[in-house]
């Protein structure tokens, strides 16, 4: 309940501020054809990005978790890392490569191709966001596959079902809840994104909120629009939970390594496809950053300042991720084990903060901090609280789908043998859910590392993070100076992923 209360804090504040705008004015603002148009564009982009993220993320998750793919461990880390690339950096990289004056255009120029398909607008936004959100699906799918009971597949095979059909009828449905959880994160991320859509000039609802607010500093108007977005995101969450309620698969035993699927002659093709994804999602932004770094090195890099910012980023993101996973735990257990409406609404409430534009959430927490949580305001704790509000659903998605795979009978057995509830949780549930919890931590950590408005407004004054340093340089066009902090941001973000990958493959 407390978790739910914290999660809906920004939304409550939005309602209060929206009411200030007056109902008549509110209706005028919301009920325009333009608003409807923007809603359509946002939903369309979110749908396209989500489908693409699933189409890339599910195969990548399965290939890295279950097959004899060459360089599996390396690919596990590399395919998750696009998540560490801030969406505005991904957008800049997409422009640098595919833009009218980009690398590809230069290569194709001598071949007589003088016009590339238009990048700005929907295609660019779709490409940049798909590449930066597919790891949400990969990571949640991997978490579920690690927990998949190999007996299910073996039973299917022993009953004479072919390996392909077993995959379709047994493995795939087992992955579905996790894939849906990851897809939900990708969809909501797209709805709330500002960086990529503004650089690639695709007008969405969130962009309209930013523009409205930054132009007029009229929070009431922004609040009205943000509430529309919140309602929209709840609808998306409802769609996902409907899908989930249809697939309910529980495995009963475990801790056995599943069989590694030999890819045979597909090994190289699969590795090639993975390499292409890594090139687009990770190598491209990193190469862009390195080019900037080379330019920037001439004027010197503030190494000490960048390292200090890296420590700040790691602190706030690490604590934020711990808080989000800790807070997600009871909600995930409730949601996976009970079908009551308290669980359902707590879970949905959690997603509201995630789908709201970061600036709107950050400003509402400024209000809350300056008046109520005065001792916390402008301390690291406030930033951690903000990350809890913003990223709770990421922890929730990964945790819930893993908990759902653990048979309640194990816990019942433990309780019936006299173990207390706490002991059951610690000794039975926790070890079984650990891969999911680790994935949840990594997800929140990655996203928090690149978060911007909350880091700017809620952390201690004069306390910069890698993301704020990247922002400061790019905002005035000093792209070269943004390179070092951006590269370090990607490097630090990869630390929990490396741990995750190494443990997985032990």
């Amino acid at each position, binding site marked *: 309940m407390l978790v739910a209360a914290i999660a809906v804090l920004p939304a409550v504040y939005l309602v209060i501020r929206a009411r200030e705008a007056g109902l008549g004015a509110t209706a005028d603002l919301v009920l325009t054809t333009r608003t409807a148009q923007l809603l359509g564009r946002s939903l369309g982009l979110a749908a396209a990005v989500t489908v693409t993220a699933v189409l890339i993320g599910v195969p990548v998750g399965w290939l890295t978790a279950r097959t004899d793919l060459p360089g599996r461990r390396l690919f596990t880390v590399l395919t998750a890392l696009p998540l560490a690339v801030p969406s505005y950096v991904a957008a800049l990289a997409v422009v640098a490569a595919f833009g009218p004056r980009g690398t590809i255009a230069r290569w194709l120029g001598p071949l007589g191709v003088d016009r590339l398909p238009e990048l700005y607008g929907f295609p660019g936004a779709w490409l940049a966001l798909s590449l930066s959100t597919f790891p949400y699906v990969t990571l949640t799918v991997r978490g579920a596959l690690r927990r998949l009971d190999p007996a299910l597949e073996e039973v299917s095979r022993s009953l004479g079902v072919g390996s392909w059909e077993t995959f379709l009828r047994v493995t795939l449905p087992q992955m579905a809840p996790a894939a849906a959880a990851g897809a939900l994160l990708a969809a909501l991320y797209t709805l709330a994104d500002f960086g990529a859509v503004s650089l690639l000039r695709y007008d969405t609802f969130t962009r309209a909120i930013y523009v409205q607010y930054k132009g007029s500093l009229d929070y009431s108007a922004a609040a009205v629009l943000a509430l529309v977005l919140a309602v929209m995101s709840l609808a998306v969450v409802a769609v996902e939970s409907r899908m989930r309620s249809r697939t309910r698969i529980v495995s009963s035993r475990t801790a056995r390594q599943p069989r590694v699927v030999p890819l045979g002659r597909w090994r190289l093709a699969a590795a090639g496809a993975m390499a292409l994804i890594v090139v687009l999602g990770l190598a491209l932004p990193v190469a862009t950053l390195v080019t900037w770094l080379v330019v920037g090195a001439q004027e010197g890099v503030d190494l000490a300042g960048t390292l200090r910012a890296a420590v700040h980023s790691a602190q706030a993101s690490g604590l934020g991720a711990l808080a989000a996973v800790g807070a997600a735990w009871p909600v995930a257990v409730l949601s996976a084990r009970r079908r009551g409406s308290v669980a359902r609404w707590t879970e949905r409430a959690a997603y509201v903060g995630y789908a709201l534009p970061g600036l709107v959430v950050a400003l509402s927490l400024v209000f809350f901090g300056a008046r109520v949580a005065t001792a916390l305001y402008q301390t690291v704790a406030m930033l951690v609280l903000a990350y809890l509000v913003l990223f709770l659903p990421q922890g929730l998605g990964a945790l819930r789908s893993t908990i759902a795979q653990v048979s309640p009978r194990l816990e019942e057995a433990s309780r019936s043998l006299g173990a207390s509830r706490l002991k059951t949780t610690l000794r039975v549930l926790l070890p079984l859910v650990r891969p999911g919890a680790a994935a949840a931590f990594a997800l929140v950590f990655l996203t928090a590392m690149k978060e911007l408005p909350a880091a*700017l407004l809620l952390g201690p004054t004069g306390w910069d993070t890698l993301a704020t340093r990247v922002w400061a340089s790019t905002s005035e066009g000093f792209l070269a100076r943004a390179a070092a902090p951006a590269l370090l941001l990607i490097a630090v973000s990869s630390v929990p992923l490396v741990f995750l990958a190494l443990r997985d493959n032990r």
Partner: protein
Amino acid sequence: MRLSRRSAVALIMAVMSMTGSACSDDSADLTVYSGRIADLMGPLFNQFEQETGVKVKVRYGDSAEVAGAALEEGDKPRADVLLVQDAGNIGQVSKSGRLTTLDAGVVDKVPTQFRSVDNHWVGLSGRARVVAYNTDKVREDQLPPEITGFSDPRWKGRLAWAPTNGSFQAFITAFRVMEGDAAAEAWLRGVKANEAKVFPNNVAILDAVGRGEVDTGFVNHYYLYRARAEGQAGKAENKYYGAGDPGGLVNVSAAGILRGAKHPVAARRLVEFLLSDNAQRYFADKTFELPVVPTVQADPALPPITALARPEVDLARLEDAKGTVDLLTRLGVL
């Protein structure tokens, strides 16, 4: 597994302890919310600390964000001084009564058109609107003599703008004030019909103009000189618009002291410092802006501020930012 759990706990403890140390440092004598980045303002704040011994803490952010934070904090301000990129943002904060009146003795040397009527805020450095053009694509004498000329179909497919940019919006507000809402709307419709390319900011426009990706673009004057200093300006050049033309609006970066500030005396000293000859020369030499104190010379490459800014454009009248956003939204420009 036992090992990993222990190491995880150790990691958490380590992070916690670092956090503790990060929180305990609170010895600032003055807190500034700065909508201008550390690369631009940091050297000035350092110099102020050295000269006065006053310790400054700065929260850097986007102008709208720090102004927004000051508004949300309301009568519980955490900052003493608010410093932003343009007059529009600080005008909004002033309108909601969050700023105190500055000492006439401090701000008198700034011409009245660069500060608010009630002295709630004062301009620090001037930034002129210009049209950047690619010298390979356009000759200067081919550019229209007034900004209104760009709505002519002759410019179809040859324009770039950044409608979300604060300076651009301030220019439109000035257009509305000087020529009337109807004229501003007609111009916007014309430029939109000319399929002006939308860019996220001025830097991107100047870059595109310099490379010849687009012929002309509406920007602030200093981006050209900064790009030149880095050898990145390509074939870009500035066209300045003369007296009485909204296309030549001179906006200012501005500062004000928050009502309820904990360190009003130090805040006053900072504003005084930012208007000193030293600081004004810094703006002229390092950021290529126009000093607001008339006795300080601008960069020799720039026209003097007095030739650009006209007393009849009162920046305080650019407060109706919301009206501009509404207009741009209605026309589908935003």
